[in-house]
């Protein structure tokens, strides 16, 4: 059966403690379990300052989950999140389409990390991971390490190149009257 790989990021109230955060996490887990979805990995991004305040909260705790499911499961998960008042915001994104469940490299995807992830993700699907421990899985894992490095390099580049963008802005202003005249 073909499935899709989804990821859902949720922002929960910053004043919740670990246990309450875990309860929200479990509510998503049970929903996914009911739908027979495969949880690939959970990530905790910790308490982050929000770019704008949501429901008067200047900060929020970020949780992230990646899972393999069919399309109707996302609606179910989002429904539970909508009901829960402690969840300030959520966003589900489909990562991969038309995934064959049998040949999906769960291990490789579970080993990946988002740039914002700060902690080790707890593996929920150990038995699934064990069954796919073969040669192809290992090769993709190596690729991912390379990709992580490249992400780091990219952020470094982002920091140094900021001045270039600012320079471009003034240049644009100078160019404006010429375009109008032609």
């Amino acid at each position, binding site marked *: 059966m073909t499935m899709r790989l989804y990821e859902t*990021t949720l*922002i929960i109230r910053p004043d919740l403690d670990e246990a309450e955060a875990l309860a929200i996490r479990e509510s998503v887990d049970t929903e996914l379990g009911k739908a027979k979805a495969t949880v690939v990995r959970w990530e905790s991004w910790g308490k*982050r300052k*929000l*770019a*704008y305040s*949501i429901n008067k909260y200047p900060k*929020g705790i*970020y949780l*992230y989950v990646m899972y393999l499911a069919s399309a109707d499961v996302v609606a179910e998960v989002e429904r539970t999140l909508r009901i829960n008042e402690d969840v300030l*915001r959520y*966003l589900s*994104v489909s990562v991969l389409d038309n995934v064959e469940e049998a040949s999906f490299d769960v291990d490789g995807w579970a080993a990946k990390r*988002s*740039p*914002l992830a700060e902690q080790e993700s707890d593996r929920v699907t150990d038995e699934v991971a064990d069954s796919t421990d073969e040669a192809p899985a290992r090769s993709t894992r190596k690729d991912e390490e390379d*990709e992580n490095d*490249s*992400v780091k*390099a*990219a*952020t470094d*580049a*982002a*920091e140094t*190149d*900021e001045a270039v*963008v600012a320079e*471009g*802005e003034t*240049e*644009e202003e100078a*160019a404006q009257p*010429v375009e109008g005249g*032609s």
Partner: protein
Amino acid sequence: MAFRSSKNQGKKKRGTKRFRRRKLCPFTTDPDLAAALDYKHPKLLRRFISERGRIIPRRISGVNTSYQRKLSRQIKRARILALVPFTTVKY
């Protein structure tokens, strides 16, 4: 700009022509950067957002059309998650 020159030939000549080196797309020149383009990467996205929180047009940043499209989508997703601002109020 270079591609305009043929259009301007019939018109009277201007004193000095503005020649500006075509800016290179940061994503096509650096595949690592393209791979890192994601809404979960606010640090990278900030580079393409003005101080006021607006998405920088590609005529300024030099980003390719296709990457600008991808970029703006990722920025909009990041905005939903409050990773980058919609707007910033300046005092």
